[in-house]
């Protein structure tokens, strides 16, 4: 048996130090630093500045606005509604990010074979398909009166709602459409986590008389808890962004703002209403909220690790 070679990046110096006559790390890191500065970090700063100005994206004058853009943002109620919708999207997407893909992955993993491989590759389809094309296809299926879904429902004497046009259903319809893609990606993520699980451990439990459900519930689900923590955290942070394309193509935030979310709000204020100030103010608020969420998550995760030890 050969010893596992020591990895290069384990933090220790090489026995032959890599000090060579060369421009050093600067040359290698310059491109990434330049790209991040020019297109991400300076723009972020720039957004902060714009949020204190009145501007319409084209005019030469940009009068100082003080906190007015922020007060407008919070007084109007439109942003609060968009924030509420964003929360609703995240809640609606959560099962598509966690429980559903976990159940599917466990089912496929418990019964490996040719069929499972075929299912696995078909289930992944929504991740690679063009989101605009998928959204347009859904729009055709869900079209009121003549769309195939409502035609089928009417034929079966069931209620046929206007899925994307009515305030009661539109948000959840967008959430489910977005959910299929998240589901597809996370089935793969859970399958990868399951690949590391020792099947023999389950057989031992089965021999001891544990039912299939008990094996799943008391062995597999706890083993997957780290993956679930990750998938739910990503859903929390990214859920709002995932819905953007579907909102833009299917509802444009309507009916009456029922499917608007904070990202679409920002886009509309920036590029439809040309109100750079309010759009930038909302960008600042979104970034701060996300930063707090991530920091809180990091803090909680550290505490959890610390209490484990």
């Amino acid at each position, binding site marked *: 048996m050969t010893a596992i070679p*020591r*990895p*290069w*990046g384990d933090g220790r110096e*090489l026995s032959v130090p*890599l000090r*060579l006559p*060369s421009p*050093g*790390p600067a040359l*290698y890191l310059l*491109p*990434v630093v330049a*790209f*991040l500065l*020019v*297109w*991400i*970090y300076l*723009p*972020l700063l720039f*957004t902060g500045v*714009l949020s204190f100005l009145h501007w319409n994206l084209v005019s030469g004058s940009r009068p100082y606005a003080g906190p007015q853009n922020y007060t407008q943002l919070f007084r109007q109620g439109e942003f609060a509604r968009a924030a509420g919708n964003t929360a609703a999207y995240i809640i609606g997407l959560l099962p598509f990010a966690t429980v559903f893909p976990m159940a*599917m992955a466990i*089912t496929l993993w418990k*019964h490996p074979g040719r069929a499972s491989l075929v*299912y*696995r*590759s078909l*289930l*992944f*389809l929504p991740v*690679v*398909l*063009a*989101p*605009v*094309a*998928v959204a*347009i*296809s*859904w729009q055709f*299926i869900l*079209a009121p009166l003549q769309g*195939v879904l409502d*035609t089928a429902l009417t034929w079966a004497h069931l209620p046929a709602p206007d899925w994307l046009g009515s305030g009661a259903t539109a948000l959840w319809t967008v959430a489910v459409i977005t959910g299929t893609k998240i589901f597809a*990606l996370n089935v*793969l993520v859970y399958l990868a986590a399951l690949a590391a699980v020792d099947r023999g451990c389950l057989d031992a439990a089965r021999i001891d008389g544990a039912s299939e459900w008990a094996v799943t519930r008391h062995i597999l689900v706890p083993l997957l808890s780290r993956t679930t923590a990750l998938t739910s955290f*990503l859903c929390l942070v990214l859920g709002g962004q995932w819905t953007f*394309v579907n909102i*833009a193509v299917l509802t444009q935030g309507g009916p009456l703002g029922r499917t608007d979310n904070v*990202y679409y709000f920002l*886009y509309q204020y*920036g590029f439809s209403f040309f109100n*750079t100030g309010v*759009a*930038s103010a909302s960008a600042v608020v*979104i*970034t701060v909220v*996300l930063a707090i969420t991530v920091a809180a998550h990091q803090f909680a995760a550290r505490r959890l690790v610390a209490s484990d030890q």
Partner: protein
Amino acid sequence: MLRAIARHTAVIAVIAFIAFPVAWAILTSFKPPPEIYDLSPLAKHPTLANYDAAVTQFPLGRLLLNTTIMAAGVTAGQVVVCVLAGYGFVAFRFRAKRLLYAATIGSILVPQTCLIIPDYLIAARLGWVDNYLGLIVPQIAACAFGVMLLRQHMEAIPASLVESAKIDGATHRQILTRLVIPLLRPAISALAVLVFLSSWNEYLWPLLIASGSGNSTIQVGLALFQTQEGSEYGPMMAAATITTLPVLIVYLLNQRRVTDAFLHAGLR
């Protein structure tokens, strides 16, 4: 036995739900106008008229070319930036390395939408509206995932290999091009597949920076087609099929590589 049937039925039902919109779009694209809303999946009088209409109303060849150039440019740019940065983070020790790495990874958390206004203004100032530079360069900045991925893979290279290359008198450039890149070929190609796909499917940035219909990408063109042609579903489904088909074929031919790419990169 009964349980197995129930299991397969359930899985197939989920797949049917997931694949239904695209399958229905493809089937509809062959239906003549009177049959468009029929419940029957197959056209009674199949026709290619929808494709004719889509191609004449939609600068398809141009959009496909634009999208291919954009996705290839973003992929090449990100791969170069990520390989260099990954090497820089693994091969050197310097002050502020941790901070710099944290700043790189932290950029993942900044939502793309929050940057569209300043990024647009910068690109406009550079005169990059409606051209390839504007489409490609800002998308290269979304490279943090790639840096993370390649750094992890480079760190796993056995130290002895790097040491012996050093003893043989190799420079950093030689270590990178003759040792690291060949060893990392699977990870690099995984990254390339991922970046290409996500850039091909990108909607928001091309919509802003290249909204002129001939200069844009296939995703933007398709969305534009939808707002302009409203309820002309036949040609629209044909256009949607043409948009999806290249990716679908690439995926079905390289399933393993594509899914592995997504797994390699963790999550995207």
